[in-house]
């Protein structure tokens, strides 16, 4: 018997070690970027990126904040796109999901098929691009980054499936009391669907915040570029910061611009909001995924 206990604890130890190693591997890049953003340029050039900084400086953050309007602009664009996109998308997909979930509505299945088809068939990148640019004239507008992903079939089904679990009697009794569909939706069903709305909202917000594809496809104007795209530009080319610096003393600093640590600082600034909200968000995501997994 003691032998068996020992064997279990050995396998437990091995498992704990493997999981710990993988978890550490998941964290290390984050730590390296934070360290890199705080390190002096000399440290990075002489010693490379490391986990612990030799000396700490906030220089690169200062330059990010004061040096260039483009970063502040990009932050504003990303924020605006995320907030507007999320609010609109949750509102519209919940309306769509509500209609598809109304059991007494005769044509709800036809509408569901209409939505499902968009999950199956895709025109692909080229026709989609041409429609957006040539016909809808989204090129170089903020709408290009908000409109295309607004109506998401998957999210609509997530909401629909959740709403189908609400008993039909609620609708019936509200109708008896003379409530209109709008009122039932707004006053009754939406307050009941907070869990699924939160899940969908978080997915959508994350999508908008992390999106750069729409910006890449449609936005050439510098002042409209979202944060993620700016980060990509900065990583491949730090020169733009020098050319777009505005303040007079920035010109002076920019001669010795710490390019490596600035890249890292912008990365930290980009992931900042997510990591900050993460402990709060993660629970909803897991729940939402479970719902999605159960319903297919």
């Amino acid at each position, binding site marked *: 018997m003691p032998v068996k206990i020992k*064997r279990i604890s050995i*396998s437990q130890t091995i*498992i*704990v070690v*493997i999981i*710990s190693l*993988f*978890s550490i591997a*998941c964290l290390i*890049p984050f730590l*390296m*970027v934070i360290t*890199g953003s705080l390190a002096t340029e000399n440290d990075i050039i002489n*010693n490379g*990126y*490391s986990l612990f900084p030799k000396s700490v400086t906030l220089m690169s953050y200062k330059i990010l904040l004061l040096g260039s309007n483009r970063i502040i602009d990009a932050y504003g664009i990303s924020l605006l796109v995320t907030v507007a996109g999320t609010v609109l998308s949750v509102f*519209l997909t919940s*309306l*769509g999901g*509500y*209609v*598809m979930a109304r059991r007494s*509505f*005769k044509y709800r299945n036809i509408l569901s098929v*209409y939505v499902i088809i*968009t*999950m*199956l*068939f*895709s*025109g*692909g*990148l*080229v*026709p*989609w691009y*041409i*429609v957006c640019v*040539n016909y809808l004239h989204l090129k170089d507008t903020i709408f290009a980054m908000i*409109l*295309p992903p607004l*109506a998401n079939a998957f999210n*609509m089904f997530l909401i629909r499936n959740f709403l189908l679990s609400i008993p039909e009697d609620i609708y019936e009794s509200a109708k008896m009391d003379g409530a*209109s*569909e709008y009122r039932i*939706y707004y006053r009754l069903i939406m307050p009941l669907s907070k869990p699924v709305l939160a899940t969908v909202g978080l997915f959508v917000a994350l999508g908008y915040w*992390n999106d*750069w594809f729409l910006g890449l496809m449609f936005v050439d104007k510098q002042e409209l570029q979202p944060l*993620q795209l700016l*980060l*990509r530009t900065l990583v491949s080319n730090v020169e733009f910061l020098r050319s777009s610096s505005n303040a007079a003393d920035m010109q002076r600093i920019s001669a010795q611009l710490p390019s490596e640590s600035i*890249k890292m600082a912008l*990365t930290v600034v*980009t992931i900042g909001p*997510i990591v900050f909200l*993460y*402990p709060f968000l*993660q629970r909803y995501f897991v729940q939402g*995924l479970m719902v999605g997994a159960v319903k*297919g």
Partner: protein
Amino acid sequence: MKLNSDVNKPQSLPAAAAVYRKRNGFLRDLKTNHSLYIMFLPVGILLLLFNYWPLAGLIIAFKNFDFSKGIFGSPWAQPILNNFDYLLSSDAASRAVRNTILLNGLFIAVGLVFEVGLALMLNEVRNKYFKRITQSITFLPFFISWIVVGVFTYNLLNYENGAINRIVEWMGFQPIDFYSEASLWPLILTIAIRWKVTGYGTIIYLAALTGIDNSYYEAASIDGASRWQQIRYISIPMLKPTIIILTLLAVGRIMNADFGMFYAMVGDASLLFPTTDVIDTLVYRSLRKSGDIGMASAAGFIQSVVAFVLVLGSNYAARKVDKDSAIF
């Protein structure tokens, strides 16, 4: 007569049936349920604009597309399959198809091992806090964009100050120029995708494992089964349907590479194209960089058609395994 036997049910009489139909027709419904139609209208229009219209636009693969004449006004290609001929005669296209299938196949296979493995291991962990914390940590990378992952990769791999090259140098070897070494990139991309989405992918398997009735394990341990035997003869068989379905659905998407990953990690590094250029990046470059709409639309057309067949096929297969798990 048949009608006579049903005479008590007025709706089966032709005249009454017509009235009944009229009363419940679409126009009638539009009137009584107008608010529901209005509520659906915004998403209906959005899907029409961004999904159905591009679908009709697939015909540009057979056209000589001209921006000023639009999708439907552009002249047909001469001969009609010209774009496809052009595409199929290019080496880049066959390379992209090969890379797409091989890389995605690799991602699916390695992903399966990692995700099921991590789920099984987490399921064995007794300490609740350890389990919760490590699960949170491994899920964290899912939340950041591929652009940021691209920065992380650069941080580790770049020639001058990359952490890995520092270690390589410290061990007395020559530093490796990762960004010009195409043969290493299938491995690098696999590691990156595993790093980013393993925590996410594990969740569903873990949910399936938590759902297994504890009495199976109790019975097995009374019979003297070791933990390992319990995993082998209970956990894994119980996971099998989930594994099969998720894999089938992933295979259904094998033609669609993750454009974000490839663009953020590889970008325009043409030295790496022999192993990293996929259909999505090829189409993107043809469309936005070289302005080669004919090639881009032909490649996109083939991709859409094959993807459609694969999605239907894999979904059909998934339904055979488990009726409830298929998407439709």
